[in-house]
């Protein structure tokens, strides 16, 4: 009863505060009541109560529920409920949520002097849902199947494949003798040693991926394993699951919370339903019929309007940064962008406020002035192509055009993903802004499914179709500068197909800094390097960042312990509980 009363009072207060336009931050002490954006920086409705049913819904489906075979941040967040990993992210709100804590392991990775081996020791008393002990072999097997068998398990990233010194190991399905996998060594049941080709200072982030969740080899059914994942966490499948059917998780009686650095066992039962129509899903969230949108990307336009118009509903919403950078890549291999001045004309001509409007205004994101996402360690605010109010600077454009010998403007193309309305609108905004300076850009839409594999991500296609400017978005696989920058800026990342370095940036200085950062152990030193890379990339004038995307997340009233996870960029699903009346 007390809780309800407090909640109501807080809703009234926040409304009053908004009326007097003095905003105010989230409550102190890392806890707070219902208030707009409160869960971004604090825990809303903290409670130790256990029990109840937590209902998740997805507007579509995940790629796979197999922890070793998925590439969705939301699923990496969700699988923590039934798959524990060597290390994991803390459950703190705010920046503290980026901190890694040992989960199955006793401590974070111990790196050797040469940086080539990383060693973890498992805690004692860890068991699977059937009571059998979790051994280092189970983790070695999990990494082997998820990274070295691309014919069968291919939906997740393969960082381990790239950095482990495993020779030409063919994966556990072709080569049944796990001893042949030399990239990982298991001297005893509790010790696991990773052998790297080159030093990689951010290895702990890889150990936090769900791919290090143990998998018993005799339970593995390849890509069908998702129908009966063997739990190592607080919850387990109630029964064998069929793709598309609702998924029910119940308590894993063998789970020992004493071994767990996190508290992730509040609800009695967890349900997930799939393919719920977006607007219906939003309505059910608002009515409290549903607890969480598991995809974690925020509500649709219709619900957005409803929530933002109603102060009481607004107090139940959060508007955090998603870590996604929205930008246009300018390709220097397409004329006239071989001339840097012509690229600068685009950077000065862009009206970022219009592009922000395309993504839904201030709620849709913050205007971005450089590539590194704010909040990434090492981020420093820079704006080398500043224009008045971000609306573009006609004089600077003309100067740049004169310098590149195209005083009257030129023609080019802007590509975008035609099934992404907001990206399309942003491309239209850029086109309109450039048109006033005589730069005539033709819009070209392509399907999302083939955009990176065949069009914008294919340098030969880009050149033949003259895609000078390409709309793109990028988020990091793990919350560090390296995880974000490497794929879109390193010269070695340029590929003939499936290229994500759309700007085809191959700057020796940037490449060197990225390589060095991977081998630098001191985090502070690394972070400084990421800042330098960011500045150099902007200096190259091949990136036009315009928005740091924000999501509008809704937390229904009955949800307890709600906080945003900076690591996964959505609510921390492992923390959630359900209010008991």
């Amino acid at each position, binding site marked *: 009863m007390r809780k309800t009363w407090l909640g109501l009072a807080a809703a009234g207060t926040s409304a009053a505060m908004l009326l007097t336009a003095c905003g105010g931050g989230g409550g102190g002490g890392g806890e707070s009541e219902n208030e707009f954006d409160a869960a971004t920086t604090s825990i809303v409705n903290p409670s130790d109560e256990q029990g109840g049913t937590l209902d998740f819904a997805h507007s579509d489906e995940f790629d796979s529920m197999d922890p070793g075979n998925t590439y969705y941040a939301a699923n990496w967040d969700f699988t923590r409920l039934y798959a524990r990993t060597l290390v994991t992210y803390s459950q703190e709100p705010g920046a503290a949520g980026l901190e890694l804590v040992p989960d199955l392991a006793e401590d974070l990775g111990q790196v050797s002097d040469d940086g080539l081996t990383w060693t973890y020791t498992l805690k004692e008393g860890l068991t699977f849902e059937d009571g059998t002990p979790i051994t280092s072999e189970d983790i070695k097997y999990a990494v082997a199947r998820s990274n070295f068998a691309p014919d069968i398990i291919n939906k997740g990233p393969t960082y381990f494949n790239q950095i482990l010194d495993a020779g030409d190991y063919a994966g556990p399905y072709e080569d049944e003798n796990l001893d042949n996998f030399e990239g990982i060594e298991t001297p005893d049941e509790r010790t696991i040693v990773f052998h790297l080709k080159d030093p990689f200072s951010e290895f702990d982030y890889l150990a936090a991926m769900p791919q290090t969740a143990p998998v018993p080899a005799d339970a593995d059914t390849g890509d069908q394993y998702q129908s009966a994942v063997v739990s190592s966490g607080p919850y387990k499948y109630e029964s064998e699951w069929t793709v598309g059917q609702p998924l029910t998780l119940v308590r894993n009686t063998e789970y020992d919370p004493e071994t767990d650095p996190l508290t992730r066992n509040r609800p009695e039962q967890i349900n997930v339903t799939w393919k719920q129509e977006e607007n219906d899903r939003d309505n059910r969230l608002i009515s409290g019929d549903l607890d969480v949108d598991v995809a974690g990307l925020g509500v649709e336009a219709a619900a957005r309007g409803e929530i933002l118009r109603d102060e009481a509903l607004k107090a139940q919403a959060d508007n955090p940064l998603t870590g996604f950078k929205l930008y246009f890549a300018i390709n220097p291999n397409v004329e006239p962008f071989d001339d840097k001045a012509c690229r600068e004309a685009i950077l000065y001509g862009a009206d970022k406020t219009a592009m922000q409007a395309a993504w839904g205004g201030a709620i849709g994101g913050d205007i971005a002035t450089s590539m590194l996402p704010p909040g990434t360690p090492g981020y420093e605010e820079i704006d080398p192509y500043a224009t008045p109010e971000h609306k573009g600077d006609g004089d600077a454009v003309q100067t740049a055009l004169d310098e590149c010998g195209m005083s009257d403007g030129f023609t080019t193309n802007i590509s975008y993903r035609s099934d992404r309305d907001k990206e399309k609108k942003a491309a239209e905004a850029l086109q*309109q802004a450039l048109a006033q300076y005589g730069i005539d850009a033709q819009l070209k839409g392509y399907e999302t499914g083939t955009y990176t594999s065949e069009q914008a991500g294919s340098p030969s296609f880009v050149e033949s179709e003259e895609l000078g400017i390409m709309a793109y978005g990028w988020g990091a696989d793990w919350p560090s500068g390296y995880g974000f920058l490497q794929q879109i800026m390193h010269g070695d990342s340029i590929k003939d197909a499936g290229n994500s370095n759309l700007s085809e940036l191959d700057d020796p200085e940037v490449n060197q800094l990225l390589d060095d950062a991977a081998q630098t152990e001191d985090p502070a030193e690394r972070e400084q390097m990421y800042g330098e890379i960011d500045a150099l990339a902007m200096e190259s004038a091949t990136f036009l960042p315009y928005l740091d995307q924000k999501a509008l997340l809704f937390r229904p009233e009955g949800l307890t312990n709600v906080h945003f996870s900076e690591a996964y960029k959505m609510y921390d699903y492992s923390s959630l509980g359900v209010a008991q009346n």
Partner: protein
Amino acid sequence: MTAPLDVPGAAETAQPEAVAALAKSSDRGRSLGQIAWMRLRKDKVAMIGAGFVVFMALVAIFAPLIVRFLGHPPNEWNQEMIDPILSTANQPWGGISPDYLLGVEPVTGRDIFSRIVYGARISMLIGFLATLVSVVIGTVMGIIAGYFGGWVDAVISRLMDIFLAFPLLLFAMALVGVIPDAAFGLQGNGLRIAILVFIIGFFNWPYIGRIIRGQTLSLREREFVEASRSLGAGNFYILRKELLPNLFAPILVYATLLIPTNILFEAALSFLGVGVEPPTPTWGGMLSEAVDYYNAAPNFMLAPGLAIFLTVLAFNLFGDGLRDALDPRTQS
């Protein structure tokens, strides 16, 4: 029809108009066209439809002029009209005002009125041109099949069956997705419009082809054709001079009824995102964007919806009236 012909008023009330028209003008002959025009003129519904069609055609032709005086450039963003938080118009009624006759688009603040007016250009252009393609191919194929018969007829008829069985929408979506940037001396939107015209027109010809074939089958056995043939006329002459003029009425009627179908098809393609490239306004494209804002900005959805609805309805009413006027047998 038992009333004697000399009873005053009976001609107007009880007799088919054709008979009445012929009775009144028995002294001087009137061509079929004149008779049809007289009937059409009396059909108020058809004339309203025709009026609206002409109106939309004028709107499409004079779009730049209309927008210059009554609207804003169709692709111009007017962010001062948009609430930065809600992304919808910051004025009541979706921004409808003397300045913005139909309000503004959410997000961009573009003038809906201007975009409807410009959208008419794409709809009418593709509707007319695609129909022209269908009519030309359909007439040629239908008349050849009907006139020559035998294996020629068999081949063409089977071809029509194949075309009718084709999943047109899926094919159109696939084809538009893979067209290159420039081809046949065209590029950008010009090329896309040409491709849309080709796809819609090329795959719709069997409908009109079948009708022409049926008409030709019955016409070729008629006495005037026999007479012409006995006088030594060649096949081409008979097709052109004897059959084609007699097929004019069905061609006109079905062309009129095909135009709205094609306008709808273009709208469907634009709705699905495979029409012309943005920011070129199209009714279907506007409708598709309006879906997200149906309750926050109903004017955004209503405007293109009504434009499509009224234009298609007008064409259909006019086409129905035209059919009634040209073919006395269909009189109700």
